[in-house]
């Protein structure tokens, strides 16, 4: 689309200068209206090229042309847009203006659309933003109210209801005229529940026990068993880690810097789920555990990995608000949120909280041990620096010393190359050897040896050589002096060693250097070796690396060095082992409010945003946080039963993991642009139940898994395909076409009998003999293992609210060809043989029981027997092929 420059001319010719009256009308009626309804998109971001916050930009219009034709409302784009009569432009995009507001605008345009010059641009006045009652009335900002459980007419499926959840679902289905799908049967329910709650398939024994259990509490018994299993925390902890963007390393430039203590956060999360830590405490822990009173604090400290393992500042604001509140506060970094009532000020209020906090380590060791470790480390570092400095000094002295003999080395080189008697008095053999190598090659990157090489071609006399060598020595000494002067000047310019180590000083310091040609010559004399991607320069003839220096040193100097080294060795010997710690936060010494970065530009700072909670979630204007950074106050504001979002957001996340989609499908966005709940009463019921139960997540899990909806078959009932194609009303259970990466790998290991069920501990890379649960595999931010990527493990750099499911040829290859599946098929073969004996049908039957929790039917048995009989490979190889196929089968790799 082209710009329409004509807009300027049209606008300018008809727009009248404002009279006093018109000015007042504009300032009192029109500007506030524009500010409230339009500025979000039509100020700095100028959506559609249109800005409405200054006379000039207003007159200029946008990409679609002039915004108004003065006096002609019907012909004005602005009016067509707010009336929503324009084919494309319907403004504001979220909801129509009130009729009265439209009339105001029409009136204004009819009267000439006067736009007076403002005294100041209103554009960035976000500190004056006030959330309106209308904005507060949005559904997700309303308090949670526990709805009555709907009564169901007997005929409309009341019989199908098992828990209150079913009442809420069936009531909506009844309105839509859809009958729910029938029960899927016990076996299917058990597989769903076991995989969903523990990430592992049920064992044949568990299946049999459940099928035999005729007591009315059979389902409850299973659910209690599953919730009590340590595997429950492993499964649901991993869901949480997706949100927390957990990884075992840092996203540092270039290399994968490991966080060897990161796993302690992972284990803390797992334990929190297993112990059913009340969710409000779970939240508080992950924002401000360090600020809690002693006693309450200790068991929660591990939770701060949530904040400390990611990036700082902006990332913390973004992730904290998305994960706990389902709000995209990050969108307000550069401008007031375009859709939700979140002014930029609120963003910086929260940023101030996090900027007033620092990453720290909370040692899990005695203070004395920590002090000993840190003290020793400091001493070792200091000693290393002392030795380095000493050696560097010696190195430079050596260059200076040798350089004074340059002429002698050159003459000796000439003598060597010309098979003359070498005048080697006072000549160091290795240095001479270097000179011989150096002067053999006349191709240099500088001209300073040109006259030497020219002379060499002329069969010179010794006298000529001596003269040339003397000339070169004078030059070399001066060059080395010049280089020193450059270093000295730069050292001063930087402000000494401190400045050199200071990034900011380095950035703004202009420095001097040798010319390129001089530099290359200098390097050949005095610098260390250089090797970057195939470009090599050997060490300079006079350069001896630290470890080669000893032979040049003697007497007291060498003694001194030896003593330093001995001291270092003693210190290192005494180094205690590294102590474990939690990645943690602490308040800065001087907490401070952040200033608003205008348009997100850190160099263009605006008003101060006092540290405080979001206005829309505060009763009125938010009270500034005054306790330290304010993190604990923030945590309390989030983990509060009066916060309308916190409980809703987490129960919705639980729901999503069980049913594939949330009641609100945009699980991390409960704002204007997120989706509306498919069943708001159900959502509020669950949220209220959570708070009532003392924030027990297990209580909600029970209600969900024991519902009839959770037990329904995957068959789409009549009418549902048309009336509810996305199954938002849950007329049937949604099949999961493929297990996620962890369940898949863990299920395979479980059925082959190889799974190592140990809980917790350091992460280990995915490898042949590593049979621990996938949760314990190393997660990298930069080098995620290809198997992880293949099966949609999320990028650990950002919070992931839902995993997609990719099914394609590359995933197929894994089952057909991967050594992992082949090895596991062998293990399964061994197990089956051991448990079922030699008879082929018995072995097939056992395999079916282990993998699918059922016996094969006659057809399947026949298929297996025939396949094995006809196998050219025969014996174990035939079995491997067969069992590989079973492991790759849809029945094993999906949930239905």
């Amino acid at each position, binding site marked *: 689309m082209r710009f329409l420059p004509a807009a300027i001319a049209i606008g300018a010719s008809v727009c009248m200068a404002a009279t006093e009256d018109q000015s007042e009308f504009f300032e009192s009626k029109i500007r506030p209206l524009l500010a409230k309804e339009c500025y979000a998109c039509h100020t700095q971001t100028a959506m559609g090229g249109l800005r409405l916050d200054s006379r000039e930009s207003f007159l200029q219009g946008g990409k679609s042309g002039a915004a108004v034709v003065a006096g002609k409302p019907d012909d004005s784009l602005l009016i067509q847009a707010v009336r929503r009569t324009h084919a494309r432009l319907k403004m504001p995009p979220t909801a129509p203006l009130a009729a009265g507001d439209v009339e105001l605008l029409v009136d204004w345009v009819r009267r000439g659309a006067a736009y007076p010059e403002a005294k100041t641009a209103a554009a960035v006045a976000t500190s004056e933003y006030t959330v309106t009652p209308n904005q507060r009335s949005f559904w997700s900002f309303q308090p949670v109210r526990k709805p009555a459980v709907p009564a169901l007419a007997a005929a409309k499926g009341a019989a199908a209801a098992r828990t209150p959840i079913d009442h809420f679902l069936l009531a909506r289905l009844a309105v839509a005229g859809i009958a729910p799908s029938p029960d899927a049967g016990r076996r299917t329910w058990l597989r769903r529940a076991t995989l969903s709650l523990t990430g592992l398939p049920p064992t044949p024994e568990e299946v049999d026990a459940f099928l035999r259990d005729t007591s009315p509490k059979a389902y409850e018994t299973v659910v209690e068993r599953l919730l009590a299993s340590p595997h429950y925390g492993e499964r649901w902890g991993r869901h949480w880690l997706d949100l927390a963007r957990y990884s075992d390393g840092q996203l540092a430039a*270039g290399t*994968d810097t490991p966080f060897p203590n990161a796993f302690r956060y992972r284990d803390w999360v797992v334990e929190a789920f297993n112990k059913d830590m009340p969710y409000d405490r779970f939240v508080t822990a992950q924002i401000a555990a360090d600020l809690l009173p002693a006693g309450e604090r200790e068991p929660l400290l591990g939770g701060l990995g949530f904040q400390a393992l990611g990036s700082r500042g902006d990332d913390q604001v973004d992730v904290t608000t998305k994960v706990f509140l389902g709000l*995209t506060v990050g969108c307000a970094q550069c401008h007031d949120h375009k859709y939700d009532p979140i002014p930029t000020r609120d963003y910086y209020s929260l940023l101030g909280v996090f900027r007033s906090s620092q990453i720290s380590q909370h040692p899990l060791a005695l203070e004395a041990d920590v002090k000993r470790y840190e003290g020793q480390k400091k001493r070792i570092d200091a000693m290393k620096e002392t030795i380095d400095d000493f050696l560097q000094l010696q190195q430079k002295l050596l260059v200076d010393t040798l350089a004074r003999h340059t002429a002698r080395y050159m003459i000796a080189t000439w003598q060597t190359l010309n098979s003359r008697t070498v005048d080697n008095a006072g000549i160091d053999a290795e240095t001479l050897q270097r000179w011989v190598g150096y002067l053999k090659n006349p191709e240099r990157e500088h001209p300073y040896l040109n006259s030497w090489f020219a002379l060499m071609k002329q069969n010179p006399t010794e006298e000529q050589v001596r003269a040339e060598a003397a000339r070169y020595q004078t030059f070399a000494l001066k060059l080395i002096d010049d*280089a020193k002067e*450059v270093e000295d000047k730069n050292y001063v310019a930087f402000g000494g060693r401190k400045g*050199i180590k200071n990034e900011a000083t*380095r950035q*703004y310091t*202009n*420095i001097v250097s040798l010319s*390129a040609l001089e*530099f290359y010559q*200098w*390097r050949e004399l005095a610098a260390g070796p*250089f090797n*970057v*991607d195939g*470009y090599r*320069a050997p060490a300079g003839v006079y350069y001896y690396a630290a470890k080669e220096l000893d032979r040049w040193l003697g007497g007291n100097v060498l003694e001194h060095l030896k003593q330093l080294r001995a001291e270092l060795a003693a210190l290192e010997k005494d180094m205690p082992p590294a102590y474990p710690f939690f990645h943690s936060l602490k308040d800065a010494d001087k907490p401070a409010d952040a200033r608003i970065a205008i348009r997100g530009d850190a160099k263009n700072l605006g008003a101060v945003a006092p540290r405080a909670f979001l206005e829309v979630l505060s009763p009125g204007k938010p009270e500034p946080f005054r306790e330290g950074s304010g993190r604990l106050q923030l945590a309390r504001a989030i983990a509060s039963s009066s916060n309308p979002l916190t409980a809703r957001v987490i129960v919705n996340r639980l729901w999503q993991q069980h049913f594939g989609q949330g009641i609100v499908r*945009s699980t991390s966005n409960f704002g*204007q*642009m997120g*989706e509306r709940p498919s069943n708001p009463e159900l959502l509020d019921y669950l949220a209220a139940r959570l708070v009532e139960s003392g924030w027990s997540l297990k209580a909600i899990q029970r209600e969900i898994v024991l519902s009839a909806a959770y037990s329904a*078959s995957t*068959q789409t009932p009549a009418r549902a*395909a048309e009336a509810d*194609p996305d199954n938002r009303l849950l007329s049937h259970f949604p*099949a999961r*076409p*493929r297990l996620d990466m962890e369940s898949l790998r863990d299920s395979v290991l479980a059925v082959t009998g190889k799974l190592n069920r140990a809980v917790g501990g350091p992460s280990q890379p995915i490898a042949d003999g590593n049979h621990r649960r996938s949760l314990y595999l190393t997660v*990298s931010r*930069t080098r995620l293992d290809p198997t992880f*990527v*293949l099966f949609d493990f999320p990028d650990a*750099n*950002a919070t992931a609210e839902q995993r*997609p*499911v990719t*099914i*394609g*040829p*590359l995933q*197929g*290859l*894994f089952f*057909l*060809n*991967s050594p992992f599946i*082949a090895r596991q098929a062998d293990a399964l073969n061994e197990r089956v043989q051991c448990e079922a004996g030699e008879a082929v049908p018995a072995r097939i039957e056992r395999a079916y029981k282990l993998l699918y929790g059922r016996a094969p039917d006659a*057809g*399947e048995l026949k298929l297996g027997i025939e396949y094995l009989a006809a196998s*050219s490979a025969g014996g174990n190889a035939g079995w491997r*092929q*067969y069992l*590989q196929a*079973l492991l790759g*089968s*849809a*029945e094993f790799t999906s949930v*239905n």
Partner: protein
Amino acid sequence: MNRRTFFETLGGGFGMAALQGVLQGAPSLVRQPHFAPKAKHVIFLFLNGGMSQVDTFDPKPALAKYDGQPMPGPKIKTDRASGSLMRSPWSFQKYGQSGIEVSEIFPHVAKRIDDFCVVRSMYTDSGNHGPSLQIMNCGHQLPGRPSMGSWVTYGLGTENQNLPGFVVLCPGFPVLGASLWSSGYMPSIFNGVHIQNAEIEPEKLIHNLRNAELTPTDQQRQLALLDKLNRKFLARAGADTGLEAAVASMESAYRLQSEATEVFDIRKEPAAVRERYDISDFGRGCLMALRLVEKGVRMVQVYYGNFQPWDSHDDIRVHAKLAQKTDGAIAALVDDLKSRGLFDETLILVASEFGRTPMIQNSGLEKLGQGRDHNTPGFTVLLAGGGIKGGTTYGATDDFGFAAVEKRTHVHDLHATMLHCLGFDHTKLTYRHAGRDFRLTDVHGNVIRDILA
């Protein structure tokens, strides 16, 4: 999602909450862009580390004149301490009909300069490798967003269902690694498939490409068995698009085996073709890119090497060695794309995450050196092929090659232009995530119309 809604959302265009949730083979099917495209494929040659503009494609005679003197004008901010201006060690010469000046370290590209558009007015936002790589690849400094290859395959699907749509070649890993070709919040089918091309044999390049044990006959029997088991399961479980896709994926995996073995094997090329590329891992990557595009792969990204080889802080002369391993391969790729009739439908990009300072850079601790620092206010990229007007230059930096001053072009503009060549209005190629429509170009980007053919 049932079959009907699935295909409806696919057919309904983009920005409609398409493709989320359950996904299968279908998302990679060919899709039509917004308008007739000029290019169908993209080959992105990434000279990671930062190619110096003033030593390659943006000649600055003033540097020779002011060599060793501070840059006139107010003090400017660079990434690290920077010193005086430094002349390029290499000479430039005019080439081709267009008379575009190219440095002597790119003699082969120089001879084909009439095929290239040289954008000399690039600028970007961050002077650190990580964020800058992230911007060049994903349009945003923070990681976690889909890469350009993900956007391209999301938008267009891919022509060959037996091969991945987006392939990334690097002997090992560049800085930041996988987040540069991540599909971010999009399904992983749009992830770049990373091939570590230090190896040659296809079996070593692609995970699980071959079954170490089974003969082809045995494997076919096994597949037949699996298919029967799955059909029985489907009959019991009832129709479900996702489950059907899972079943079908085994068959497509089998087809991938034979196709990939062929296409990833550059040894299948005649020696005369091969030797022009056989100068470096990067060169062999270019040849593989050629073969992949020929077989319908949508986008191939070739990283020059591991970590950041073009990061010549200590000595700019390293650029000569790097160029030596790059120049001939780019030239060969252009020639072979032409001879195979693919040049006009393949967009070629040659770029780094940023450029290098015209000033000498001293790293502070070393204090002596002849390198150049990172430069974000001005740098150069090359474009060629489908949709691009060859033999042109666009924009300019100041007299010293430090900052873009004429027709300043942000990375977002480059992305917008790339999508335009592929037939997309970059403002309309959106993906709905977290309740918002996201774009590769975020809220930025203008198509550089002057360089379009």
